[in-house]
């Protein structure tokens, strides 16, 4: 396999005669083939690429990953424990394989379809691959050529889905060095509403590679609340692309919480294609030890009267490394754009590193755009205040660290989800060590 980057692909073999679902469909076969050609030509992104300036894939390239897995069956009770929500539709993927037994997708509300991707090809044909760029080097092409499963969701016009949909992706650790390539497609028709949580979980401390691409299509006036919780093992590699296209008056709220993984890279992108579309793009990253987390976000304001509001916060402990690169792009004629982006970081220990790069590219004049970025530590005055009120230093620091995350969590309007996520975050809060 020809590689133009210095990085080798960490797979023993991706044989060209490997078979995938949908190989009988010419359009899908040709899409996979296009992706294969692209991946073979461009390979993995190298550090000299601006988008990968602060994230080295060398540790990744040194691994060897396998496809095809033995899966570990889980009991319903175990699954209930792992899931974030009880009263929700549940779509479970274990070690890359859809589990009908553990999923709760019977008796769906009228107008809602939830299906494994491999059984929903007809449904998603018009959308698959439309939200992402295949031409960039890297993981989207790899995902497109290798995608083996995923969740497909469609919601009909004017339907408001009452229950939250929890996508639970579990790596059981039964197969060592397992690589999974998941593709999720979420399509909301006009004026429909849904709430979806993507939840990634690792059950042991082994190395694994999760490569996901989630495509979101919001028709006019559709509203999607989307949350992602990533708590994989500290040896896992998690590479995710989340890409949306938004029609007029649509509203997308997305919030990504990244806790696990040795290396987690998230690309979050939306294109505001219709007037009065709005996006809230939030995220929280808490990393420790030698974890590396990288968020690359991009918001394209392509037409007039669109708004975006972005808030990312990070807490870094140990020798961890955080990267935030947020790009707001206001295209020509996208007048009356209102865009605000904030990224704030808390450094808790010697040895950690943050690289943040909030960018704006603006080609329209009647706009209101701003961003703010800070790097700092726990405020000494606040700490002193709490101690003067009787809290010991460790408790005071914990409290203030938790408080730092509060405004991101407060922006989650479902109390149920907010509480569930807040609990997970609270448990994961690093113990400050200065």
């Amino acid at each position, binding site marked *: 396999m020809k590689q133009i980057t210095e990085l080798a692909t960490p797979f023993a073999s991706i044989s060209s005669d490997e078979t995938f679902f949908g190989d009988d469909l010419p359009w899908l076969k040709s899409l996979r083939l296009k992706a294969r050609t692209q991946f073979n030509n461009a390979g993995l992104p190298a550090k000299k690429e601006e988008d990968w300036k602060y994230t080295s894939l060398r540790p990744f390239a040194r691994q060897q990953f396998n496809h095809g897995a033995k899966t570990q069956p889980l009991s319903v009770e175990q699954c209930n424990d792992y899931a974030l929500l009880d009263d929700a539709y549940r779509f479970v993927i274990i070690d890359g394989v859809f589990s009908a037994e553990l999923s709760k997708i019977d008796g769906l509300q009228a107008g809602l379809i939830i299906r494994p991707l491999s059984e929903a090809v007809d449904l998603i044909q018009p959308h698959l691959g439309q939200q992402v760029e295949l031409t960039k080097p890297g993981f989207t092409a790899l995902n497109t050529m290798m995608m083996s499963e995923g969740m497909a969701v469609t919601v009909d016009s004017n339907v408001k889905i009452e229950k939250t949909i929890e996508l639970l992706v579990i790596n059981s650790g039964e197969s060592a060095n397992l690589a999974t390539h998941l593709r999720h497609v979420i399509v909301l028709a006009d004026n429909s509403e849904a709430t979806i949580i993507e939840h990634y979980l690792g059950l042991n401390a082994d190395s694994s590679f999760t490569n996901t691409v989630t495509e979101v299509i919001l028709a006019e006036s559709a509203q999607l609340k989307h949350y992602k919780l990533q708590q994989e093992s500290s040896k896992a590699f998690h590479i995710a692309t989340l890409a949306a296209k938004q029609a007029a008056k649509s509203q997308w709220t997305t919030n990504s919480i990244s806790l696990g993984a040795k290396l987690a890279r998230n690309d979050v992108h939306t294109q505001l294609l219709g007037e009065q579309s709005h996006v809230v793009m939030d995220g929280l990253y808490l990393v420790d030890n030698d974890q590396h987390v990288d968020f690359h976000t991009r918001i394209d304001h392509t037409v007039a009267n669109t708004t975006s509001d972005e808030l990312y916060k990070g807490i870094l402990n140990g020798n961890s490394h955080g990267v935030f690169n947020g790009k707001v792009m206001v295209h*020509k004629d996208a007048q009356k754009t209102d865009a605000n982006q904030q990224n704030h970081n808390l450094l*808790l220990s010697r040895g950690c*590193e943050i*690289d943040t790069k909030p960018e*704006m590219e603006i080609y329209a004049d009647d*706009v209101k*755009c701003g961003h703010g970025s800070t*790097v*700092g*530590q726990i405020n000494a005055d606040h700490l002193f205040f709490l101690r003067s009120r009787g809290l010991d230093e460790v408790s005071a620091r914990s409290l203030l660290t938790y408080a730092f995350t509060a405004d991101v969590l407060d922006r989650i309007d479902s109390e149920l989800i907010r509480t569930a996520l807040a609990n997970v975050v609270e448990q994961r809060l690093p113990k400050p060590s200065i």
Partner: protein
Amino acid sequence: MSEQEQINEVLATDYQAGFVTDIESDTFPPGLSEETVRKISRMKDEPEFLLEWRLKAYHHWLTLETPEWAHVNYPEIDYQAISYYSAPKKKTDGPKSLDEVDPELLRTYEKLGVPLDERARLAGVAVDAVFDSVSVANTFQDKLAEDGIIFMPFSKAVHAHPELIKKYLGSVVSYKDNFYAALNSALFSDGSFVYIPKGTRCPMELSTYFRINAANTGQFERTLIIADDDAYVSYLEGCTAPMRDENQLHAAVVELVAHDRAEIKYSTVQNWYPGDENGVGGIFNFVTKRAACRGVSSKVSWTQVETGSAITWKYPSIILQGDNSTGEFYSVAVTNNMQQADTGTKMIHLGKNTSSTIISKGIAAGRSQNSYRGLVRVGPNAENARNYTECDSLLMGDQCGAHTFPYIEVKNPTAQIEHEASTSKISEDQLFYCKQRGLDADDAVSMIVNGFCKEVMRQLPMEFAVEAQNLLSLSLEGSVG
């Protein structure tokens, strides 16, 4: 007339420094080779170490590629089509006093508002006038020498103070630093050299006025300023060029070194010819400026008002090595018509308790592109580093672009970094308010823009502030309404 039409009208003005001085020159034929480098060195009768350094730079340059990361577009430069040296024919061996300077040159500087005669003395500013590739006049040298201050053309300093040149040249900007710095290191023809001895406060503003006159030449000047322990100097730099249809290359390097408790204040009003409203002609301004705050409690402050050049690629930076050192960057960058500017700064925090401030004001009009690019880096040992960055952009017209590319890299948990940026249109409410008080559109725009830039303008020394304000108004004349 609509507000926008009025904006446009205000923006359409002529470049006032665009005349050509008719003077006989010695000019190298176009072309670049090792021999060009040797020839420049020979003309200046340079010591061997300098020639060697130039040649190393030249050979290194040959291995480099043009940087492409900036947000600017321009046709590839043919380095063989440029002449690398042009100097007015001299009657004597370099000007010893103003009486020996060609009156035509004196008139040129007079016309540019930089009088080199007694009036300059009254203004209390010492001037080094660099015309194309050489320094043509240098005032107040003797008076400054009484305090031990050295202020002289670079080419002269090479002979008078080779030990200082040897010690400091390339110590802040290595010839390996980047493509244009390498090119400059190989080919620089003149510039200013300043040394302020220990404990000395320079009694007057020092200034260099750069003028490109000859056609088809590149200007590669080199400025080196050293402030020894407890010294202070305020240095000003101005630049203009005639209106020509071809693009001309200006690739300068400026190195500043501040020792213990020294302070250097470096102010630039950059008004190179920006090209016409269709983007024909204008200077390519590819400049490397860097300061090293080497000593404890040293301080360097860059202030720039950038209104000129077809393309600006410039990041005056500060390496904060000394404990408790301070860096400041204040910038106003105005682009109009087809101008492109990619400018900002780098603050590299290495010492303990270092602090930096970045205030950048970008104003884009016409079809121009105006980018702020900045880096704030805190090294692992830079305890208690502080940075505050504010970068605001003002857009005038829907054909221009304003972009912000800040990089923040922090490896020390005691750092406190704050970055804020905003982009908006010039406010119609503000314009109407001023007009309701009787001001016409030009005055209203100029007033609001000057207000927008005030934090930066107030950093300029008095003599420069007035010029800079006028320039700002002129650059935007016709842009609003």
